[in-house]
């Protein structure tokens, strides 16, 4: 069950889905599980909703593991979810946050891909969809959003790991997020958690134009990574996607920002390359601990700066 679950280990999709049910059951009504869609291979796509009540409260979205091989992201999300429940009613930041806003966590954003990394190819990044005209499977879901779709920093080659797909939102996993966030209509923050390379980024990736909230997002990023570094000394770089790593079109946070969600961020968790996607399990807890602190800086700011 969620109390005895080993958060210091990597887990299969089935184990995570089983954990979700026991986690919800033991959360005293604070957490519920919603299905927001199904994957190409017909797996359910779940979101955990943290809510203390109210109708259509302002909300925060955080998704983990959109690139299947980045195992540390969903592993961090499990610990994060558990931490929130255990801190609610004790920690003032967590309590204030959940008393005023709803929080949605998409623990495994790309279930088909994640399952594939456990059974067939540990290094798989994309979805597992089939599209006409090619024998190569899968689309990079983080190039499939409606943000300069098909532009520089994405590949039109279906065999490439950064293939943007045949059309915007062609991936059911992407469409599920887009529909859910759009229909909800009151998200104030959208955070997409990846690994590795220790970065905290905000829009844009598809253009060198600065977002209109550039100064605020820069300051908040600095605050977040400073807090994160205070836990285990892990150093992050920060800034817009394009200048911090590379140009990329069709990414989730660019789409979210263009939808009017000001606090749009993308994390790249540990490490800086010694292990890459094979980050040892003994670093899961430390990664989750520091990420929690970095995330809470952002979430505190979102709560204190309504718009």
């Amino acid at each position, binding site marked *: 069950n969620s109390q*005895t*679950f*080993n958060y*210091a*280990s*990597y*887990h299969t999709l089935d184990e995570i889905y089983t954990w979700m049910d026991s986690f919800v059951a033991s959360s005293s009504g604070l957490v519920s599980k919603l299905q927001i869609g199904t994957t190409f291979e017909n797996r359910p796509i779940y979101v955990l909703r943290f809510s203390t009540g109210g109708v259509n409260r302002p909300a925060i979205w955080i998704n983990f593991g959109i690139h299947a091989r980045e195992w540390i992201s969903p592993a961090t999300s499990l610990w994060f979810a558990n931490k929130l429940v255990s801190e609610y009613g004790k920690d003032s930041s967590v309590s204030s946050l959940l008393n005023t806003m709803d929080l949605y966590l998409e623990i495994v954003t790309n279930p088909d891909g994640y399952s594939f990394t456990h*059974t*067939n*190819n*540990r*290094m798989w990044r994309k979805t597992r969809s089939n599209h006409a005209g090619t024998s190569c499977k899968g689309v990079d879901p983080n190039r499939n959003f409606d943000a300069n779709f098909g532009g520089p920093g994405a*590949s039109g080659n279906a*065999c*490439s*790991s*950064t293939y943007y797909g045949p059309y915007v939102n062609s991936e059911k996993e992407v469409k599920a997020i887009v529909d859910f966030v759009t229909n909800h209509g009151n998200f104030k923050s959208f955070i997409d958690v990846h690994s590795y*390379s220790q970065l905290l980024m905000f829009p844009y990736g598809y253009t060198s134009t600065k977002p209109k909230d550039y100064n605020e997002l820069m300051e908040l990023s600095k605050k977040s990574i400073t807090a994160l570094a205070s836990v285990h000394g892990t150093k992050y770089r920060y800034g817009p996607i394009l200048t911090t*790593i*590379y*140009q990329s079109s069709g990414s989730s946070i660019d789409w979210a920002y263009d939808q009017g969600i000001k606090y749009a961020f993308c994390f790249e968790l540990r490490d800086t*390359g*010694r*292990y*890459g*996607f*094979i980050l*040892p*399990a003994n670093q899961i807890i430390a990664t989750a601990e520091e990420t929690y602190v970095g995330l809470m800086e952002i979430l505190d700011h979102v709560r204190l700066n309504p718009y």
Partner: protein
Amino acid sequence: QKTFIGDQVLRITVNNEEQLALVSSLQEQEHLNIDFWLEPSKPLLPIDIQVPREHVQSVKALLEFNGVSYSTLIEDLQALMDEEEKEMVLSHHKER
């Protein structure tokens, strides 16, 4: 199940646009089957590539011939994955 015996992960540091273009062009050479873990972006930012065992020597030779510096981050990817799997199996059997 796909295995990665002898696959290496190289960290490449390019010093100028010319070297950047050279490394980027590896993406188009599909026969090499190189997986970019960190995509090429701009000089001085690291690029990490996973190279299949059978192409490790030729890719390293190409980089050296063109004066591109690199280091080997992961000597044998499969060895790391075996470790990972062992840890997961152990964790399953551990008393909670």
